[in-house]
């Protein structure tokens, strides 16, 4: 199958168009169409995973020929006169950095679609937007042309704005536009860097200015005196142009990740969004930020990344601690989980900044693990909220007695998230911290105290998760809504089990056999480290 990635990306779009075309008499079936799409995507992505070659001959990163499932079609060719021709391709391909995210995206989308059963109004618009978002997310992870990447990256914003704004909670208007403005602020400046890059980079095969990300990673493709040339050392406002470009790109993706202090959109967006959208936000969109830092920021500007690694590590540690401390202080369960996302994504940044194989592997695994776990957590919160329309921690007590199966899943999700050995988050966080710890010896990028700071974060996350577990689930059953709530708080149903079991299995599988992920990523991560810190 030559066009498998295109099918993966555009299948949801086709389904979205189908939903738009179908009359409202089919409105009860829209969710099944969406679900069918995600199931097909899940099968395709698993097939891709099984078929994925993990040998070093297919490491990818900065060698075009080593990417798998390549698709390349000329898209826009514009003659710009004096400066030459502009070359934009429809260029897809995957390597070890992107392939795991395809599986994760398909899985999270599947869960999110199952969570969409709670949506009661305007099914047509909801599922069309959800599928459009699906297309955009898949596209971001597959695109290797920077222009195409940017198109998909921006395409994510629009459906999200409406998904949060139309089906969200009380403060949805504020949350939706805040999210949109924050992300756009980062990405507009990213656009400027993209343009600067394509002026600087020449495709050696055709002599055209190109948007090919892989060619941008090779210093020899830069024009000698161009703005981002590695040898010319151009300056902008007294800072090295390449460092400035790195910072701009980093900020754009850091807003998505999000890192403190650019995270303030996240609690609002997560809390106001309906459950399926929270799942996608936490499960996938934050990962787009981390993926962008790996694929774009560091791969294109490695020397600037080495220069700023200390700061990245510091921001990572601050995110871990600040997010965890905030989570401790929350009274709203969904807000607590939102802040725990900030904290957990801090490990990704810390691992990446270490510039070691362990650290980057840990960061990748953390993204996948957190993608599944945050989807699970938001799904669980959504279940409670859906039943009684309340999610204040103080409103519940002793839920374990009335919802035992539900509590079992919560326990799995909480323990997995706080990094209990045997679950994926433990492996991921351990590797990130090992990377940060050994970095001082291997390449000297990060001091040891950052690893210690990160470890304190694990302690804090244990504190807030266990404390929440104790407050909400243990003890005598006491509910704010009294007997009405007691009858409404039904235990878990089949649909919910179907959604939760794969996520729990993923967390366990990756915790016990992390090599399921590591073996497929390792060649790419080695090549990435080679590019990053030499």
């Amino acid at each position, binding site marked *: 199958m030559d066009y498998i990635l295109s099918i993966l990306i555009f299948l949801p779009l086709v389904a979205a168009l189908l939903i738009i075309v179908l009359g409202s008499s089919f409105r009860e079936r829209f969710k099944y169409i969406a679900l069918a799409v995600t199931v097909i995507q899940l099968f395709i992505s698993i097939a891709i995973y099984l078929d994925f070659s993990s040998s070093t001959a297919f490491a990818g990163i900065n060698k075009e020929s080593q990417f798998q499932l390549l698709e390349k079609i000329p898209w*826009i*060719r*514009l003659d*710009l*006169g*004096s*400066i030459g021709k*502009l070359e934009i391709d429809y260029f897809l391909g995957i390597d070890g950095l992107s392939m795991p995210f395809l599986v994760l995206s398909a899985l999270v989308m599947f869960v999110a679609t199952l969570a969409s059963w709670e949506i009661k109004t305007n099914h047509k618009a909801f599922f069309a937007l959800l599928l459009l978002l699906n297309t955009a997310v898949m596209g971001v992870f597959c695109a290797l042309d920077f*222009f195409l990447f*940017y*198109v*998909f990256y*921006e*395409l994510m*914003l*629009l459906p999200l*704005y*409406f998904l949060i*704004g*139309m089906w969200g909670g009380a403060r*949805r*208007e504020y949350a*939706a*536009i805040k999210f*949109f*403005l924050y992300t*756009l*602020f980062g990405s*507009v*400046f990213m*656009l*400027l860097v993209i*343009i*600067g890059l*394509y*002026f600087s980079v020449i495709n050696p095969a055709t002599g055209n200015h190109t948007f090919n990300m892989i060619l941008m990673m090779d210093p020899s493709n830069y024009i000698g005196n*161009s*703005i981002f040339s590695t040898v010319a050392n151009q300056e*902008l*406002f007294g800072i090295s142009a390449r460092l400035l470009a790195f910072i701009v790109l980093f900020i754009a993706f850091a807003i998505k990740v999000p890192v403190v202090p650019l995270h303030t959109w996240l609690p609002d967006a997560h809390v106001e969004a309906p459950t399926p959208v929270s799942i996608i936000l936490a499960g996938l969109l934050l990962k787009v930020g981390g993926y962008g830092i790996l694929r774009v920021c560091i791969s294109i500007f490695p020397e600037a990344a080495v220069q700023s690694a200390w700061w990245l590590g510091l921001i990572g540690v601050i995110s871990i601690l600040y997010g965890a401390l905030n989570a401790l202080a929350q009274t709203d369960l969904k807000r607590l989980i939102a802040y725990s996302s900030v904290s957990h994504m801090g490990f990704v940044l810390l691992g990446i900044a270490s510039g070691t194989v362990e650290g980057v592997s840990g960061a990748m695994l953390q993204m996948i693990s957190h993608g599944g776990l945050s989807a699970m957590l938001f799904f669980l919160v959504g279940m409670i909220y859906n039943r009684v329309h309340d999610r204040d921690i103080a409103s519940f007590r002793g839920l374990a007695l009335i919802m035992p199966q539900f509590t079992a899943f919560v326990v799995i999700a909480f323990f997995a998230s706080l990094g209990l050995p045997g679950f994926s988050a433990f492996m991921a966080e351990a590797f990130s911290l090992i990377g940060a710890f050994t970095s001082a010896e291997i390449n000297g990028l990060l001091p040891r105290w950052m690893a210690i700071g990160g470890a304190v974060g694990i302690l804090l996350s244990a504190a807030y998760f266990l404390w929440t577990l104790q407050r909400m689930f243990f003890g005598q059953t006491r509910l704010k809504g009294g007997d009405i709530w007691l009858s409404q708080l039904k235990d878990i149903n089949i649909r919910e089990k179907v959604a939760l079991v794969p996520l729990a299995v993923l967390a366990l599988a990756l915790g016990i056999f992390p090599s399921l992920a590591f073996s497929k990523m390792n060649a790419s991560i080695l090549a990435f480290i080679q590019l990053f810190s030499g």
Partner: protein
Amino acid sequence: MMNDFIQNISPSINDTIRSLSLFYPEIGIATGFILVVLADLFFHRRSPQASFMLTILCLALVGCLNFSQLGYPAEAAFGGMIIVDRLAVVFKIIFCFVSVLFVLFVRYNQSLQNSSKGTGDLYSILLAVHLGLHLMVMSQNLVMIYLSLEMVSVGSYLMVGYLSGNPKQSEAAMKYALFGAVCSAFMLYGMSLLYGFTGSLEIYSPQFASFLITTPFASWGLGLIMLLTGIAFKLSLVPFHFWSPDVYEGAPTPVTAFLSTGPKIAGFALLIRILAPFQPFNLSGIDSSIFSMTTVLAVMAIASMVVGNFGAIWQNNVKRVLAYSSIGHTGFMLMALFVFSASGFKALIFYMVIYSIMNMAAFMIVDEIEERTGKQNIDDYKGLGKSFTVLMIAMVVVLVSLTGLPPTAGFTAKFLIFSAAIEAYNLSGSALMMIVIITGAISTVVSLFYYFRIPLNAFLRTGENQVTGIKGSPKVYITLFLVFLLIFFILFPSPIQKLL
């Protein structure tokens, strides 16, 4: 004495006859103009839409003639008054597109159709303005520039005041005419200064160029600045923008849509023509002096983007919002001219094509909503997403395109302008250029904020009294076609690229 002239007669006649062959589209418009006037006079009662049909036919014919001129080599005509080159022809094709949309818009606008004046005169005025637009983009002689600009201006004044149903409309027309008259007086004075200094009216003549090279900028700079005043007025660049919000609000919506596209595009074409002879000094020579052309344009661009985009935040009337946003867009487009070369022009033309599609579509939707519900304010758009779903989705696509986000052609257009601006920065390395670019980026974020107040009200909020939905009307279909173009051109931009 007489004999001296006799020698010149036959070459001059030959030149005129030769020039006529380059002048077919304009002759076509002139003929169409007369026919429309006659048709409106004699057949108005029997077939009220005769003038509409004639205008459309005429524009279609002119469009074909323009297309046939695409391959021509650049050639001056009528003793150097005008020049027919690829740039001019491309602009003329864009005008045809805009005018056709305008004519359709007028045809399906209730308030114009129901007015006692009828629409026949509006069509004939349009053709006259269209002729003016054609001449504007072709002129290379100061007198011709002035004449064509006035031709467009006078026609525009008439269009704005066409209904004059209420004091607001009359005020708009009056304001426009007065402001325009002052600016054109400035322009004329600037031209006379330039003519006095150089002794030539032809801006591409060697005489003109040699004077500019030998004389310091300070002496003729004032003339050039005054000349630019006239164009800045047409473009509604800050600080000559004060007329535009009032005029946009007061004029009949189709006229507003036309004013925000046709004359504005022509203004840019004229700007390219006028700046061309001054280019050799632009980035190097003049910049070293205290008073620099680039600085003037850069400051204007920054001011327009800031005033346009921040001004729009405080507006509530949709047409005023679009007026301010169009000021911002003009400032943004100005960025393409800092790199005065083919790539800059290409970016600009691409932007203008997309811009005219977006603006026409936006005004059509606004007009449709106004006709159906009488709502003109953004706050009143609450809940319209329910009753006018298709129309409001189209509006969202248009607004996304106006913001310059994928997946719409507005993104490609914005991208090309940024490319041109960054190229200009690469060439000059001036910090001012960087500030312009950053202003452009920030104004994009700001523009999202006010553009999205429309979907915010239409989709995220619910209205008190639901208006019942509508079945498709011609305007809706035209809008949908335009929206389709916006999405089509990001996937397949080659049709426009071929034109460039």
